[in-house]
């Protein structure tokens, strides 16, 4: 039956990641590894002649190997981090080859989430490059018998300034390798004026492979002797198999056997959900066999979960006093005085990630060791989870990271990797677990459903004299602790406790909510609902006050100052407040910039058209967005134009950053237009793109213009911060165009048509 026999060796078939372009000719994306290779898995960088850092190595032919230790899901981490190394090394990018790291704690944190790859690794990447450059200069100076201070580097060569003698990095590699590795305080980083790549950027290292189908994703991983698995999981979280009959399933041609997977012991964390796996010769046969399974389930206590009723519970909770998480002045005293009060409830449902590549993983367990190939954002987390499931040491789990067909936070959770490992151990051969789209939608770690209540009184010029906000949502810590019901500081900080307004009386609260599905990080996370609620309620108050929404927003942000979080549990996304203070002047600046660039107040808007504005900081990046919409008589919404201004500090790769903000507008369009996961009796109602639609080319902004503030502040995040202000500005634009206020997402509930 095999038409092309290319699976003859017990090898991972990754040779396909050879692109035809001159830059990366002959480079394998992966080291070619057999599953039974000796440990540890040294990289090409490790084995290079000059190897002063885990992140790079230089060979006598001048090739610079740089290790990409974080995952590539489309944000260019795999390109942009090596680009920083190359710049500080003064290397010719054309002579750089990138190899992907396995999960290994020697690289530090590898969980590619939270928009912090550049922020957290910028200094380490620069130091890696500077270390090698220091040693190359020393080696050249010794050869020439001149002081090192008289030498400098210039794109892959060391030059002696006065005599113009030159030596290439390759010819110096052997001599440099004999020198001691310099201390950090001996390193001299290049001045900004000498940067080749930082601030100028570069397209993806894999670009040609991406357009030729040669790029290898998790879905494309193959191993000799592997079988395919599709798993029928408990439809309700925490459910168990009562009994099952696989007779019909086993009759399907290509199906080999069925294998039960144990249910998890709460809390779910990243454990497999349990169920019955169908093992087959190909993916499709496994899917077909699964349809023929006859399983009786014990659904367990989450069977009582109905998302409609749950929404009412969240709302009711938010209408009563909750836990205070930040307080300024005394809102109660102001409200007690009476007078007109403005109140509003805002709501965002559960959201699914729906990355284009469904979850998939390939595992080979043999002799107490597991070799994994997976599209994971979190290879060390995968090691931990697999080790625990199999009862082996973390070091005995080798986790190779393929390209990811999208991640958006879902692939930080390695439950699907653990499934493959458990099945491989039971089968005694390599197993590839392939999730269907239906599995992906029904067994996600959803972005939390949230209800928010706002209350304000207005004074002179319509400015709030008191502002109360309460949010209620099932928190992410509930996947690790079934009793966790309150928002944790790491997620309350996401656009909630850090409301940046200059208000005399402010009260920020959070209420309890028990989770009945797995809650997890999704691009922008809690900023999605917090940004939506605050920025739309602000727009409501602007209209109530008869003020221009831009002027009003700037008035609330107030004059440039640094927010004092004294008394507030504010983790600042793990960054120091000294290096990354919350500066309202920067939020103000992007707001003014986007207003100017979008000709705010200058464009004429006819019937059914309007613009909206919103400003929101997240992942340490300041963003303001203006969205223009057109709503026709049939209620169809078009988005002719989006303008977005951002201050992310130093931007290493502007081209990739523009792409991230263009994409964020599309992601936000999906959330706002149609994003909604619901449940009945604990079972998720949606299953595929017909009932969980995501934005298509005819529904998205026709043009998104991105303006990047030139800044020398330390780098912040760019993958996520574009989403929250887009959603709010879009909904504010719909109000401007139609007079209808969006308080419940998605907008399908508004009844525009």
């Amino acid at each position: 039956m095999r038409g092309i026999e290319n699976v003859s060796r017990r090898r991972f078939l990754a040779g396909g990641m050879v692109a035809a372009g001159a830059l990366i000719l002959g480079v394998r994306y992966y080291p070619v590894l057999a599953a039974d290779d000796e440990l540890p898995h040294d990289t090409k960088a490790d084995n290079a002649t000059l190897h002063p850092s885990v992140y790079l190595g230089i060979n006598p032919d001048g090739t610079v190997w740089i290790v990409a230790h974080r995952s590539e899901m489309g944000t260019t981490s795999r390109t942009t981090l090596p680009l920083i190394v190359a710049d500080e090394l003064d290397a010719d990018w054309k002579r750089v080859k990138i190899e992907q790291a396995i999960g290994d704690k020697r690289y530090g944190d590898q969980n590619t989430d939270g928009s912090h790859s550049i922020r957290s690794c910028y200094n380490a990447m620069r130091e890696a490059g500077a270390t090698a450059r220091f040693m190359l200069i020393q080696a050249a100076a010794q050869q020439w018998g001149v002081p090192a201070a008289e030498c400098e580097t210039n794109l892959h060569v060391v030059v002696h300034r006065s005599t113009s003698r030159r030596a290439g990095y390759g010819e110096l590699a052997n001599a440099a390798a004999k020198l001691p590795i310099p201390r950090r305080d001996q390193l001299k980083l290049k001045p900004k004026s000498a940067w080749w790549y930082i601030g100028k950027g570069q397209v993806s290292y894999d670009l040609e492979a991406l357009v030729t189908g040669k790029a290898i994703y998790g879905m494309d991983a193959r191993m000799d002797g592997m079988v395919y698995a599709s798993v029928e999981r408990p439809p309700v979280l925490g459910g168990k198999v009562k009994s099952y009959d696989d007779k019909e399933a086993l009759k399907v041609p290509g199906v080999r056997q069925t294998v039960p997977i144990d249910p998890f012991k709460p809390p779910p964390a990243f454990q497999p959900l349990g169920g019955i796996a169908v093992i087959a010769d190909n993916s499709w046969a496994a899917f077909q066999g699964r349809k023929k399974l006859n399983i009786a389930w014990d659904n367990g206590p989450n069977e009582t979960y109905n998302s409609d009723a749950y929404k009412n519970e969240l709302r009711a909770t938010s209408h009563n006093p909750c836990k205070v998480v930040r307080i300024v002045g005394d809102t109660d005293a102001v409200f007690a005085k009476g007078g007109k009060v403005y109140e509003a409830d805002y709501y965002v449902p559960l959201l699914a990630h729906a990355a284009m590549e469904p979850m998939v993983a390939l595992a080979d367990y043999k002799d107490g060791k597991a070799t994994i190939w997976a599209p994971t954002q979190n290879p060390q987390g995968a090691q931990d989870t697999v080790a625990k499931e199999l009862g082996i040491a973390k070091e005995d789990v080798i986790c190779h990271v393929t390209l990811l067909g999208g991640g958006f936070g879902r692939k930080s959770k390695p439950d699907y990797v653990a499934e493959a490992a458990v099945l491989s151990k039971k089968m005694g051969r390599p197993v590839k677990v392939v999730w269907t789209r239906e599995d992906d939608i029904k067994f996600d770690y959803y972005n939390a459903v949230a209800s928010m209540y706002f209350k304000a009184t207005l004074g002179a010029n319509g400015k709030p004299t008191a502002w109360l906000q309460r949010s209620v949502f099932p928190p992410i810590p509930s996947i690790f602790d079934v009793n966790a019901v309150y928002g944790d500081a790491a997620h309350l900080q996401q656009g909630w406790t850090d409301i940046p307004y200059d208000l005399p009386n402010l009260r920020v609260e959070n209420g309890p909510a028990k989770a009945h599905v797995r809650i997890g990080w999704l691009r922008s996370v809690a900023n999605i609902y917090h940004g939506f609620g605050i920025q739309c309620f602000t727009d409501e108050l602007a209209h109530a006050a008869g003020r221009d929404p831009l002027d009003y927003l700037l008035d609330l942000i107030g004059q440039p100052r640094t927010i004092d979080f004294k008394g507030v549990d504010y983790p600042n996304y793990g960054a120091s407040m000294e290096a990354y203070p919350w500066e309202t002047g920067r939020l103000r600046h992007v707001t003014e910039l986007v207003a100017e660039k979008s000709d705010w107040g200058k464009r004429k808007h006819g019937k059914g058209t309007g613009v909206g504005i919103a400003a929101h900081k997240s992942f340490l990046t300041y963003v303001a967005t203006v969205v223009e919409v057109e709503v026709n008589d049939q209620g169809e919404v078009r988005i002719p134009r989006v303008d977005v201004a951002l201050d992310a500090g130093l931007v290493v790769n502007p081209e990739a950053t523009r792409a991230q903000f263009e994409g964020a507008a599309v992601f936000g369009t999906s959330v706002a237009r149609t994003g909604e996961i619901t449940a009945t009796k604990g079972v998720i109602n949606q299953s595929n793109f017909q009932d969980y639609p995501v934005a298509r080319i005819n529904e998205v902004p026709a043009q998104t213009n991105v303006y990047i503030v030139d800044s020398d502040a330390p780098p912040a995040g760019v993958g996520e911060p574009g989403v929250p202000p887009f959603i709010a500005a879009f909904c504010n634009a719909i109000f401007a165009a139609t007079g209808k206020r969006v308080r419940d997402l998605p907008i399908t509930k508004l009844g525009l048509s």
Partner: protein
Amino acid sequence: MIQLKVNGTAQSFNGAPEMPLLWYLRDILGLTGSKFGCGIGLCGACTVHVNGQATRSCVTTMQAAAGKEITTIEGLEKNGLHPVQKAWMQINVPQCGYCQVGQIMQAVALLNDKKQPTDQDIDDAMSGNICRCGTYQRIRAAIRSAAGEMS
């Protein structure tokens, strides 16, 4: 026994005739450029050409593919890159890239059909192909650019 041509090479298949072409290409021939995204023809990640027509291979059975000429991304251009692929690189379209093979196969079929597509033509032809990263603005630009190159 089902006979078909894949990228110019004759193939025969004696498995289940209702098996989708996508899984034959991916799991049996090892041509993994065409992607699995939804399995029901809603996302376009699996798009290939069947006798020159852009077709969702995840809902095309082997029976339906019998006797047909199938072109996948691996066989799109024998030498170098197709102008649409070049445009995709020049405009720097891909982010994660997973959907882009399907997008490219769809765009090639569009441009084979209409040398100078209007914006409406582009929306009509491409609205079956989802990109979750949201590269649509660049997809439009790349199609316009390729149309210019190919005319």
